């Protein structure tokens, strides 16, 4: 393309980028403003006297908003679920991709059918099931039920179907059993897919909102998303503190996205189409 067109092209893309980035940057800059400065009209663009005051308030805040604890809880829940998903989904996906057995059609059709069941239909009965298991107001409620999601099974099944069979057949001739083939041949070949699934599961759980809002009750047991709702109530218009909390919840997600964006986008764009 010509030089002028090139300039116009990148200006358009750049302007569009600003729409997506500016709000997030605003969140970060506000978190380094004083409460006074954040209420000024018109607002300052960059903090005049950058301060970590909002973060100090956030971390030393009262017992109703133990933010570091929320951070830790989020980390445990998201890692725990990602791990659980990897184990159960890879095993199930392997069976569905490579084995023939009675009932396969039904199992697969049932799992597909749940893609059409809206989550809210399950939220009330699942609340009661969690209650019966004694998991209300605990991290177990956040780790286990979400691992029943069909996404991981579809995603990995699709990947396994694309793997060449020769290596498995060679292993079979050498007398390896299914479990050995699965752990020694299939899983090592699937590292990129497993990493993608782990990251997507982690982020999904890290960001989950409605479920923790209704199943966690004690501030000590919150994760960051319901915690942000609490911060909004507790700090009202002290926006630097709320933005500091939002930054705390965003930064791990954004870092994870930056290092693995190709995989995440690939995984997401396939979820709808081929998964």
């Amino acid at each position: 393309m010509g030089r002028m067109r090139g300039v116009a092209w990148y200006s358009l893309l750049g302007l569009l980028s600003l729409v997506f980035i500016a709000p997030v940057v605003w969140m970060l800059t506000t978190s380094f403003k004083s409460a006074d400065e954040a209420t000024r009209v018109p607002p300052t663009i960059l903090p005049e006297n950058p301060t970590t005051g909002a973060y100090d308030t956030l971390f030393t805040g009262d017992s109703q908003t133990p933010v570091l604890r929320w951070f830790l809880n989020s980390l445990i829940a998201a890692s725990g679920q990602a791990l659980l998903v990897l184990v159960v989904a890879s095993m199930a996906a392997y069976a569905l991709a490579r084995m023939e057995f009675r009932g396969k059609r039904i199992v697969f059709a049932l799992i597909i059918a749940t893609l059409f069941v809206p989550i809210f239909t399950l939220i009330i009965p699942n609340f009661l099931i969690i209650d019966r298991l004694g998991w209300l107001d605990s991290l177990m409620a956040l780790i286990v039920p979400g691992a029943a999601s069909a996404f991981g099974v579809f995603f990995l099944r699709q990947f396994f179907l694309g793997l060449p069979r020769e290596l498995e057949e060679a292993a079979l001739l050498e007398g390896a059993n299914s479990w050995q083939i699965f752990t020694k041949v299939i899983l090592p070949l699937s590292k990129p897919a497993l990493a993608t699934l782990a990251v997507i599961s982690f982020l999904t759980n890290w960001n989950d909102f409605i479920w923790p809002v209704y199943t966690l009750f004690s501030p000590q047991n919150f994760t960051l998303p319901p915690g942000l709702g609490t911060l909004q109530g507790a700090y009202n218009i002290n926006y630097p503190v709320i933005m500091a909390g939002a930054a705390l919840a965003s930064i791990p997600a954004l870092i994870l996205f930056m290092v693995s964006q190709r995989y995440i986008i690939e995984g997401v764009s396939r979820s709808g189409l081929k998964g």
Partner: protein
Amino acid sequence: MVDVLETAATSTSAPATRAPRRGAGLTPYLFLLPYVVLFVTFTLVPAGYGLWISLHDWDYLLAGKPFVGLDNYQALFDSASPVFDFFWQSMQATAIFTVFSVPLLVTVPLAIALLLNRSFKGRTFFRAVYFAPYVLGVAVIGVLWRFLLDPNLGAVNALLGAVGLPDDTAWTTGLPWAWISLVGVTVWWTLGFNAVIYLAGLQDIPRELYDAAKVDGAGRWAEFRSVTLPGLRPVLLFIVINTILASSNMFGQAYLITQGAPGVETRTAIMYIAEEGLRSYRMGSAAAMSYLLTLALLLVSMITFRLFRTKD
């Protein structure tokens, strides 16, 4: 999902002549077991259990949960019942949000995908930037936009004031502003998701079709209508249905940005169902509502499927 259905049909009906019979005996079931336990406990059982609950006067806090048949459903259609007004108000809110957000979320991401579906330097970078908000959770973007849209202190009104427009719009408490805010924020947040799906779809359209169109002397618009759109058909169907489902599931944005305001105008069906079932603990009634909503969504999805099929 479309292709999921197709792969399901082909893969399960294909005879297993080629593969050695390594799936004999219990092995496949053992591999499936851990997932199936979770699936049955947290998806299959709750789907049936919810229906059972909806047939009872199920108050979480009371010992007695008498069977009431279809009373909970009947109450939703009885204008004298205490839930009638609130329920249909919330259904209306969900409908308004869906009707205004879906067309935007179907068209704008397509435009962005077309923009990105050319070869230029930095393409992957821009794709990542437009996708980035989606990586943030609804809680983050909710409190962030609650701040940006604050009528007095927010950047949005400050920006509008700076260019000489009214700077006192009640984005979070007035009508129709609250709707514009919720739709706008949602488009900003999830646009990248649909865009990357479109982009993958665009890249699956064979180059030869474009070359053929060029040979036929087709212009840009003719090419778009005769090659791009038909090629995107399955993707489009997926996006439309998935976006309808996602929009009618809207919860966090309204919960954090408008808190249902003004009054209960922006309280969506999910918000009302969750409040009724998980705050007031009237679970029978809430379960009945969720099944009615599911039924409505199923109907809408089926109509969409039909529309796409008959266009052939």
